[in-house]
């Protein structure tokens, strides 16, 4: 069978980095092809070249057997290449139809476009009302807009970049059905993910990249998740090691009736949230993105201050009125979900980024002056202990890959030995090897007596890591349950809450 897409010896060099080194593989029509690799392995760069966002330095792209130069995304779409990005580009205040119309290269009258949208939705079972405002849609529904937008162009190759990271288990299953239907009709799919069990369930072939080079092309159904992960990181994978006979200590972090005000137009505030985390406990908060996780993290970190001193207490001491600096001094460190621009400043060096949160706890400031030597030393320690791939403390944070920046941020907070650590999406977009290292560091911190709150959309992560689990939905938190007692289905239904039509009666009272 002729190849739909063939890459031959693709090489891309950035100053100081070889992002892709002589990568060759091929995708046949109707194939679901996984592209697998650690962060910084070169997946995104490769895909950007296929979609015309960047040009290869060497090598050839063959489309239906003909060598092509994809000058820009518009040219890629003309060839029949569609792409669904990890981050959606949608206007929340506009309707589905308006959003799709804005993204089209050709100008199509509204009525005709709507008819075509409805035809595509019918064909692939993508349920969506074209006249709904995007702000009222769940993340899964928003993703469907992006998929419909790509399918309207009748693509012969669809690139999906980490599409499931924000979906509930039920939504993932629906997505897979659509993708299988597409493939059955001859559309090839290039599927980028680091969730190995999904790749096993969905993909026909997997191409594994490591350090910019192709290490293996294999049949994921014939491999185990573990064997693929090991190929990806090039070493044996470590399991999380927990101390034997762990006993949880006294309540350390107590949150009672915490509320936040609604700030943005489409922002979900925290509504009457209460929970307790004991010393040594890892407390997981599951939920679909956009259900108040950001407000909860800000309210715990101190970016949003409470007007009740005792809404949040550490060891019985009320910290509700303190700002982030005050709370850090009392032992509470936090890591927000957004790395670049929130947890770290991209235009600053790593060393300067350490000053952002560690300056008071680690004595980096004397009489208002910054001890940059201390910041550099500490940053060097974080880089070494958390195996951050960076040239040194003087590297710009923005030059690190997402996973490496996350390792640095997690290391920066964990090595401060906080007595309470609140993290959101600790391993979002991070590869298996780095995720395992971060998980182990969290477990070790808990074993040393800290109370840890993990807010995540990744159920596998929460189930592997946490002692206790609760679900956040529309700003309200479900009662906490020991992790061993809850099933994935139960959590999925709680997460679906208002958005999922499956079980409206499962919303926590």
């Amino acid at each position: 069978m002729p190849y739909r897409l063939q890459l031959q010896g693709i090489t891309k060099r950035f100053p100081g980095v070889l992002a892709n080194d002589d990568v060759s593989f091929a995708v046949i029509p109707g194939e679901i092809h996984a592209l697998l690799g650690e962060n910084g392995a070169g997946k995104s760069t490769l895909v950007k070249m296929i979609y015309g966002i960047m040009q290869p330095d060497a090598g050839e792209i063959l489309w239906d057997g003909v060598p092509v130069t994809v000058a820009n995304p518009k040219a890629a779409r003309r060839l029949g290449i569609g792409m669904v990005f990890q981050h959606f580009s949608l206007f929340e205040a506009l309707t589905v139809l308006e959003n799709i119309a804005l993204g089209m290269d050709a100008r199509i009258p509204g009525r005709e476009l709507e008819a075509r949208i409805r035809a595509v939705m019918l064909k692939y079972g993508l349920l969506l009302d074209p006249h709904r405002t995007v702000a009222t849609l769940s993340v899964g529904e928003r993703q469907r807009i992006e998929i419909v937008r790509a399918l309207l162009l009748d693509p012969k190759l669809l690139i999906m970049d980490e599409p499931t990271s924000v979906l509930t288990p039920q939504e993932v299953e629906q997505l897979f059905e659509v993708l299988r239907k597409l493939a059955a009709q001859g559309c090839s799919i290039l599927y980028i993910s680091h969730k190995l069990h999904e790749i096993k369930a969905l993909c026909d072939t997997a191409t594994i990249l490591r350090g910019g080079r192709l290490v293996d092309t294999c049949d994921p159904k014939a491999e185990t998740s573990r064997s693929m992960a090991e190929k990806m990181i090039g070493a044996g994978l470590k399991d999380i090691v927990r101390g034997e006979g762990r006993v949880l200590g006294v309540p350390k972090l107590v949150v009672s009736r915490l509320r936040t005000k609604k700030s943005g137009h489409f922002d979900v505030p925290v509504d009457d949230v209460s929970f307790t985390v004991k010393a040594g406990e890892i407390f997981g908060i599951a939920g679909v993105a956009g259900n108040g996780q950001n407000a909860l993290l800000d309210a715990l970190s101190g970016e949003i201050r409470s007007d009740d001193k005792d809404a949040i207490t550490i060891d019985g001491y009320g910290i509700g009125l303190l700002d982030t600096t005050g709370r850090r001094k009392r032992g509470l460190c936090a890591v927000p979900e957004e790395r670049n621009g929130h947890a770290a400043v991209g235009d600053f060096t790593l060393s300067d980024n350490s000053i952002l949160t560690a300056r008071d706890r680690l004595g980096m400031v004397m009489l208002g002056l910054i001890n940059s030597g201390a910041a550099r030393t500490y940053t060097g320690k974080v880089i070494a202990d958390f195996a951050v791939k960076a040239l040194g403390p003087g590297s710009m944070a923005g030059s690190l890959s997402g996973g490496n920046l996350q390792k640095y941020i997690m290391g920066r907070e964990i090595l401060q030995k906080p007595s309470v650590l609140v993290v959101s999406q600790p391993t979002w977009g991070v590869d298996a090897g780095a995720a395992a290292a971060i998980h182990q560091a969290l477990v070790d911190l808990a074993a040393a007596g800290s109370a840890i709150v993990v807010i995540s959309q990744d159920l596998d992560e929460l189930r592997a890591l946490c002692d206790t689990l609760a679900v956040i939905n529309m700003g309200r938190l479900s009662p906490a349950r020991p992790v061993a007692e809850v099933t994935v289905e139960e959590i999925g239904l709680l997460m679906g809450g208002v958005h999922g039509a499956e079980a409206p009666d499962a919303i926590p009272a």
Partner: protein
Amino acid sequence: MQFRLEKRREPSRLMTYVTPVAAVVLTMLVGAVIFSAIGYDGVGAVREIFLTPLTNAYKWQDLGVKAAPLIIIGVGLSIAYRANVWNIGAEGQYVIGGLAGTGIALLTYGMTGWWILPLMVLAGMLGGMAYASIPALLKTRLNVNEILTSLMLTYVSVQLIYYLIRAPWKDPMGMGFPQTRLFSEAARLPTIIPGTIVHLGVPIAVVVGLIAWFIMSRSVFGYRMRVVGAAPHAARYGGFSENKTIWLAMLVSGGLAGLAGVLEVAGPFQRMVPGFPTNYGFTAIIVAFLGRLNPLGVIVAGVVLAITFVGGEVAQTTIGLPNAATGIFQAMMLFFLLAGDILIKYRLRRVVPQAATAGTA
């Protein structure tokens, strides 16, 4: 042939230094062409404006005197702009600073004592701060854009001069001229090089630049300004409140503009006159950007802009260039600088378009 901008992995340090120089060179080239095209001696204009002030040793003292207020105000603005606080009204704060100093000078008229000048300086700085705190208050309380309020207050301050020197502060011996009386000796800024017009404000400007550089690069205050400007969300996470930062930025930039004002009125002017607002406060915006918002760079940029002021005056007399020419050259410099800045984060790359449509049939 087609070019496209590609994002660099790290901002180019080289370009940070190259673009200001390139902006000055481009200004000279384009300026020569434009003024030739409209019938002046374009090459001569560039020579008179940019080179004569440097080659003629007699003009060096003028350079120092013009550069001093530009540097002092520019340093303050560079600090505020780092934090994305856009104080456009330094001219107004400069005027109020000058008026506050004038007030002290008139109150102490005829007195002697070493304390008079320091008191004037203090009053000038407080005046500038007070005037800058109006936009700060409006911004932090009502979220009113500081660009508009600070700019509009400039025009108010100029009217205040006109009122004061026509009525309550008018020189009783001035034969009706709208100006104050000449300050007494103790209220005048001493010259530091005998026989020249170089006054104490010149070394003060350099010291202000050096102190500001140290504070911006080494202190938590400087860190706060930089982080708020670079990533406001991260700044909040790091424990720096936005409102406090706005206040600090406005007070520092307003205070320094006020300092420049009082040094100017006690130095070159030695009395308050209607011609006191000389647009130093606006030109200092160009100085701050040309100096890369870095106090050391501001010192250099202040001298460059002073050259265009002095050179503009030279060109007026020698080749009859209109006074507005200086403004045109200064504006071109800012234009080329801001346009060139894109090369710090992006590189220009050639793409070959001919095969772009291959395979679509």
